[in-house]
């Protein structure tokens, strides 16, 4: 009986374990030094905000692991010897494997800023980071967040629930403008300001200053301003958590280099999730994609490969989602921050500036390529179908109602969107959906 050992109890590691168990009777051991049980990393913010307790973030009850014969081992792995198939733990313990899955996740980026290791300076990725933030943000007067991405805005939202004023340094001219196109980035930037975040755009971190006890006292920005603060959130993205394996002989670039079967250069050693760097990523995808869904899908794939059905990692079309304070965001297909040469776009925004949809399509064939939707929920299944069937922008705009996933009675905007589309494309108009009586009365 194979002994399958998985390092990392995040979504990639746990999905692998669950799917291996579904398909086989192998002995499974999941190792983590972070927590005893799997929890949803994306929900860490809700614990700080008091929306949930840690218990609520665990997708499976504690009895689940024993019942499914998934052994959980707490500890940090220090070294791996691939020839003898042996793991060495920090406490000296050893463990043998037949097949090994490395699902070690990410660590927060640090770019060598002066003062980046002071007390009260921290990113947010792990459970320990959350505990750190909890203890270092008690009774403080101001926090500064560096890095205009998803974790940064989450941290801002978290701190505001504790009534801690937040200054947010963003290198770009708009929030998350390296990922979001200008219109969407503007909409979110305005919403961030609406929540009274002191947003400093086009501003970078120069230095973090220490008080007499080695604790952060203030931040100096690229414009020379000094901002007194007692906590600094460092959130300029994450990178694969593979440093402890650098000298072990496994091939590492930025992450663990793996082929399309997620296998590394070492026999019987696989990589999954944030730490995995694909040698040849699928068309339109990046080598490292540190998102929840990729971790899950790699786990689902490995669950088959490890149990005898060799399966390529074939994610479907790109999709993602996030929430910026009160505005939800989803995306399906490819929408880059800047249009490529063959691309065209159609953009609609609601009057109150809280909802918008961006459609990107091919200039010559009019084939739909992707969508960004803010404040309106869209149906994954329908977008997956449209993108695979290479529907035209006109088809998509005309049938938009089919993709709507908003709750009942929510105001529908498809007629407005269709009217705007027709105004901009008088030569090739779409049919505008007629509003029903109920809709007219109640919206």
């Amino acid at each position, binding site marked *: 009986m194979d002994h399958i050992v998985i390092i990392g109890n995040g*979504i990639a590691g746990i999905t692998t374990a669950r799917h291996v168990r*579904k398909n086989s009777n192998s002995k499974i051991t999941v190792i983590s030094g972070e927590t005893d049980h799997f929890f*949803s990393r*994306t*929900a860490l913010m*809700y614990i700080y*905000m*008091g*929306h*949930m*307790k840690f218990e*609520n*973030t*665990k*997708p499976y*009850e504690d009895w689940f692991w024993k019942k499914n014969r998934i052994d959980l081992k707490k500890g940090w792995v220090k070294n791996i010897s691939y020839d003898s198939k042996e793991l060495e733990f920090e406490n000296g313990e050893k463990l043998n494997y037949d097949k090994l899955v490395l699902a070690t996740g990410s660590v927060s980026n640090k770019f060598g800023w002066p003062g980046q290791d002071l007390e009260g300076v921290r990113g947010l990725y792990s459970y320990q980071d959350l505990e750190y933030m909890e203890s270092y943000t008690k009774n403080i007067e101001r926090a500064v967040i560096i890095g205009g991405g998803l974790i940064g805005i989450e941290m801002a939202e978290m701190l505001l*629930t504790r009534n801690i004023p937040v200054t947010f340094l963003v290198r770009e001219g708009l929030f998350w403008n390296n990922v979001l196109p200008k219109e969407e980035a503007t909409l979110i930037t305005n*919403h961030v300001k*609406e*929540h009274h975040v002191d947003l400093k755009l086009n501003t970078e971190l120069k230095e973090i200053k220490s008080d007499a006890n080695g604790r952060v006292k203030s931040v100096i920005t690229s414009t020379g301003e000094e901002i007194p603060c007692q906590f600094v959130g460092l959130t300029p993205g994450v990178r694969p958590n593979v440093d402890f394996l650098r000298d072990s002989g496994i091939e590492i670039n930025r992450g663990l280099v793996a082929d399309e079967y997620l296998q590394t250069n070492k026999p019987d050693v696989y990589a999954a999730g944030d730490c995995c760097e694909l040698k040849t990523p699928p068309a339109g995808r990046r080598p490292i994609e540190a998102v*929840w*869904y990729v971790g*899950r*899908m790699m786990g*689902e*794939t490995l*669950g*088959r490969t490890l149990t005898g059905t060799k*399966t*390529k*990692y*074939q*994610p*479907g*079309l790109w*999709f993602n*989602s*996030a*929430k910026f*304070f*009160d505005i*939800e965001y*989803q995306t399906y297909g490819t929408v880059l921050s800047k249009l490529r040469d063959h691309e065209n776009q159609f953009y609609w925004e609601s009057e109150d500036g809280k909802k918008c949809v961006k459609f990107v399509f091919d200039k010559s064939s009019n084939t739909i390529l992707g969508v960004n939707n803010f404040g309106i*929920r*869209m*149906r*994954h*299944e329908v977008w*997956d179908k449209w993108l695979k069937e290479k529907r035209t922008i006109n088809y998509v705009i005309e049938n938009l109602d089919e993709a709507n*996933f*908003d*709750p*009942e*009675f*929510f*105001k529908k905007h498809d007629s407005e969107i269709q009217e705007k589309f027709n105004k901009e494309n008088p030569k090739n108009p779409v049919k505008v959906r007629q509003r029903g009586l109920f809709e007219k009365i*109640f919206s």
Partner: protein
Amino acid sequence: MKIIKTLGLALFIIGFGIFIGSFFTANYTLTESILQEKVGTPDKASAFIANTNMIGKEYSSNFSFISALAESFEKTNRSQLSKYGISDEEIQNILSLNQGTFAIATIDQVFGNSERGQYKSAAFREYGGWLDGREIDDSFKKYINKVASDIKKYKITNDKGFDKYSAKALKFSVTKAASGGPVAASPGLFLFLTFIVCIIGAFMYIVPKINDGPPGIKNNNIFFSAMKNVGWLGIMTGTFLIAFYVFLYFFPEYMTNWVIMVDPVSMMLSGNGAGHFFLYGFIYTVSILVMGVRMIIKYRHSKYQIFRTISVMFFQTAFAFIIPEILIRLNQPYFDFKNMWPLDYDFFFDNELDTLINSGGLGIFMLGWGIALFLIGVPVFVYFFGKRWYCSWVCGCGGLAETLGDPYRQLSDKSVKAWKIERYLIHAVLVFAVVMTAGVLYSYWTESDVLLGVNTKDVRSVYGAWIGAGFAGVIGTGFYPLMGNRTWCRFGCPLAAYLGIVQRFKSRFRITTNGGQCISCGNCSTYCEMGIDVRWYAQRGQNIVRSSCVGCGVCSAVCPRGVLNLENKDEDGRFQALLIGNDGVSIQK
């Protein structure tokens, strides 16, 4: 803004303090005229007066007054029993007058011709008529003793004294009439100082929340709250609610001062004074209205939540509170058109049926309406919309849970163990309700109280006390701050069980999971008041079809990734997982 909120909270606490204080601050003086009016029968009233020392005496607390009252009822009963009961000496005399066979005419000699004697003779004939002409053997003395004790047990307390039920009713009405003190002197003033002040305070506290930030999910700090996460405030609130329900259902005579406060409202609506269930209905409706406004403000970004909350506010106020009182004013039967058997477990009780049948066309319509509601309404509406059409849009229990109970929805237990208990318990209550009702109807048609050796009246009073009052009231609402706001709906409500069976097996309703977008964060499961582990399904890309789902829509509202949506669609594919976004691996069911 903050000052208005603080002031509101202060007003609420003052109003609530006066309300609690007024429980203790009445004095009570019983007069002969109160007794005569409330007892009705002059003989019983005089018997009571002869056996009590309460008349004209002032009592300074409800506890001392009510215990003296209970003692007087018992003393009266004892004295009536000794007056009208057949004594051992009289039995001896009867036996000595009869040799060989028993001749019933002989008893007249023993009992004599006085009022008491005539009563005893009549009673003996009623209970012991079957002894006439019987041979006097060894068992005969036993028979005659049995007759005497049956008369004591079943007849005398009824005819001449106060049985359990009339004593209970009288304790309430006599105490209320005997109440003196500030509240009784000016009920309107105290209505203002308690309820109106509390309502104003609550609104001052709630309404400024509109300015707390842009519309959106605001669950901040819920698990740090002493009120919302079973802290000291939650435990105190739970204790108060439990105590309130215990008094309401089992000892309403102690809360007469509160009832007096709402007399003016009752007079306005029905033209009658208030009973304790009017007080309850009033508090219930006010709670739903005030906390409904809170609900609407909290979820003002969601039209589904707004419409649903307005719906429960309307059905409670109009259907459960005002219309029944107006019916009374029009001399029609009290009837709540939206209440439904088996939640409305006494719908088929003999007295209820008789009232409806004897109330002409409207009564017959009510009877037909009530039957059609559960026979036709449930399957049809649940098929098209799911059980939510009732549980979270119409029902009174649901209405309170969704408004007053909303702050506690995160306290429901999500474990598989709790789900197991839930299924056993709720279906057991459904079976109990059906069996109890079948027994009651059997007795109604056959006029026999005993079915399969069990007294149907006993079964129905056990149901009323343990399920109707204990489970639905004391546990159902009293445990809001301890076990979440749907404890009754989830573990006990027989109607929810019935609606749920239809929803699980024959309905277009489901919660659709949006492909592969779930990030397993757990907001949906945490805020599911029915304790459904929504995430378990969502993270597998599977739709959620569960008999217990009341369709409140909060899982969909709190989801940060737009994963969940309540939908009525084709039954085909209801249970299926459609897409997880992974082309290399398809879902195994």
